[in-house]
C-alpha cells in the first residue's frame, strides 16, 4: 500500500480559515498520509509563535452565524472584532474543538511538513524570529515538487 500524499496551500490568516488547514492536515496524517502545508500570504500568520492575534471579524462576513442580526454599521464599531473573536473561541472551547496551538502541535507531532513562502515572507517583511522553528522556507516551484505528486491538493 503506497503512502498517499496531500498538499495544502494555506493563504488565509483569520480564525475561521486557520482551522481547515490544520484539521485537514492532522486528520490526513492520522490516516497515514504524507502531508505538507505551504503557507503563503496571510496564511503566514498561522506560523507565528504567538497565535493570539489570529482573529475573526464580523464585518463583511454575511455568512457568519450571529446570535442576533447585526447591521453593518454595528459590525464596524471598535471592539466588535475582539468580541466576535472571543465569542468564536468560547464556542470552539465549549464544543471541545482543539485550540489552534494544539492542532498545529499535533500536525508537527505527526510529521506534517510546514513550508513558508519565501516571497511573501519578504513581501510583508515578516521577522522569521516571530515564526515557529520547524518551518522550511521555499518558493512555489520547490513546493510543486511535492504538490505535483499528491493524491489530494487543496487551496484554502
Amino acid at each position, binding site marked *: *500500500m503506497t503512502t498517499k500524499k496531500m498538499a495544502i496551500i494555506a493563504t488565509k490568516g483569520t480564525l475561521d480559515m486557520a482551522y481547515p488547514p490544520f484539521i485537514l492536515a492532522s*486528520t490526513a496524517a*492520522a*490516516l497515514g498520509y504524507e502531508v505538507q502545508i505551504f503557507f503563503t500570504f496571510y496564511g503566514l500568520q498561522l506560523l507565528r509563535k504567538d497565535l493570539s492575534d489570529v482573529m475573526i471579524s464580523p464585518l463583511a462576513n454575511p455568512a457568519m452565524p450571529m446570535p442576533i442580526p447585526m447591521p453593518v454599521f454595528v459590525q464596524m464599531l471598535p471592539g466588535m472584532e475582539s468580541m466576535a473573536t472571543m465569542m468564536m473561541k468560547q464556542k470552539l472551547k465549549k464544543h*471541545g*474543538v482543539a485550540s489552534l496551538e494544539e492542532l498545529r502541535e499535533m500536525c508537527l507531532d505527526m510529521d506534517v511538513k510546514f513550508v513558508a513562502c519565501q516571497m511573501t515572507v519578504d513581501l510583508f517583511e515578516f521577522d522569521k524570529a516571530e515564526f515557529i522553528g520547524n518551518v522550511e522556507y521555499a518558493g512555489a516551484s520547490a513546493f510543486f515538487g511535492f504538490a505535483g505528486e499528491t493524491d489530494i491538493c487543496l487551496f484554502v
Partner: protein
Amino acid sequence: MNFDKEFDASGMSCPLPIVKTKKALADMESGKVLKVIATDVGAVKDMQAFADQTGNTLLASSEAGGKFVFFMKKK
C-alpha cells in the same frame, strides 16, 4: 470485549478522537486492542474510516449511555 488500553475522548470534537487514537495505537504492539470512548457523533463514521484507511481493525462500535464505545485492534 477484552482490551489492552483505554482512552477517553469524551468532550473532544473532530479531529481529536482520531488523532489521539492514532497516537495511542502507536505505542501498542500488533494485535493489541484499544478501547476508545467518545461523545462526538462524527466519531462513529470516522473510526470506521480510520480503520479502513490505516489497516487497523474496528472490532466493535456501540453506543452506551450517550457515549460511543469503540474497540480498535492494531494491525
